[in-house]
């Protein structure tokens, strides 16, 4: 099954319409989470939104996920190691306030498992491929560990400084020595 998700905030008719046109030529069924869209697909099953638990279940059941270039979906694809095709929202089609999704795609091209399609033709080519490479979890870990370690150190300091009991005992401790 191919899982189409357009995120939680904005409609994305162009992507839904494109997949609807491609659906008859694909060897797998599509299920779409299509948001509050004016376009209704004729060639695959869909729903407006999914509860978080149902969303994860559908995501895990999919062989490939097609989505807008939203960070939530990209992180979820990495978590479940699902090949992801991202189709960025573009400001010129009034799909987002600006073109940050295009910029994200340019940064993502080097990431294994994330496949970028900036137009309908590229999307079709990716979907017709027999297999797509899934993401690797380990590539994220080094830079995330770094961020979390430095944040933890800073937060610990903030909490110690803000806690009257801690700072008082520290002052007394300093007086004794």
């Amino acid at each position: 099954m191919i899982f189409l998700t357009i995120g939680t905030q904005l409609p994305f008719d162009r992507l839904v319409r494109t997949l609807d046109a491609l659906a008859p030529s694909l060897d797998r069924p599509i299920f779409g989470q299509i948001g509050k869209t004016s376009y209704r697909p004729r060639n695959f099953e869909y729903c407006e939104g999914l509860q978080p638990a149902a969303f994860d279940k559908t995501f895990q059941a999919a062989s490939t996920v097609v989505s807008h270039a939203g960070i939530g979906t990209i992180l979820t694809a990495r978590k479940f190691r699902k090949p992801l095709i991202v189709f960025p929202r573009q400001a010129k089609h009034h799909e987002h306030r600006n073109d940050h999704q295009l910029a994200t795609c340019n940064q993502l091209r080097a990431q294994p498992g994330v496949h970028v399609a900036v137009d309908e033709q590229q999307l079709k080519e990716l979907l017709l491929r027999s297999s797509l490479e899934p993401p690797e979890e380990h590539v994220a870990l080094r830079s995330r560990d770094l961020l979390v370690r430095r944040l933890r150190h800073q937060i610990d300091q903030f909490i110690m400084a803000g806690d009257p009991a801690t700072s008082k005992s520290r002052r007394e401790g300093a007086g004794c020595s």
Partner: protein
Amino acid sequence: MLGVLAISSGGGHWEQLQLVAPSFQEAPAAYATTIEGLAEKYGIKNGYLVPDCNRNRPVDSVRCFLQVFRLVRQLRPAVVISTGAAPGLFGLLAGKVFGAKTIWIDSIANSEKVSMSGRLAGWFADVWLTQWSHLETQSGPRYWGSVL
């Protein structure tokens, strides 16, 4: 006393907030987000729901700000941390008013420039971070790593 209030919109901002959550796992923490059921899905007991908003919807923004403000006044966290967007900015602002230390981590989605909310947070946040090393500057935002 509450150690950390972690606040963000649902979707990608929330996913990123969860990925940095190990940085405050030892502190008493509460969460606030904009999608019902989201905190529960992550096994969080003290999750609070706040209204979603963005700068194109001023009425929602006022309502969101008031609710976030009330929540921060009630919880009095020592630290407020956010990955965005507007509700997170309000959380940091309210935190600042009530004497909390504030941490802004701009979303990884902003790879060309820091978001509008992020730039506003930069005026007052105690820690102001971008997740792209090429966006780091001497005067901030700083780059400490990224979730991606």
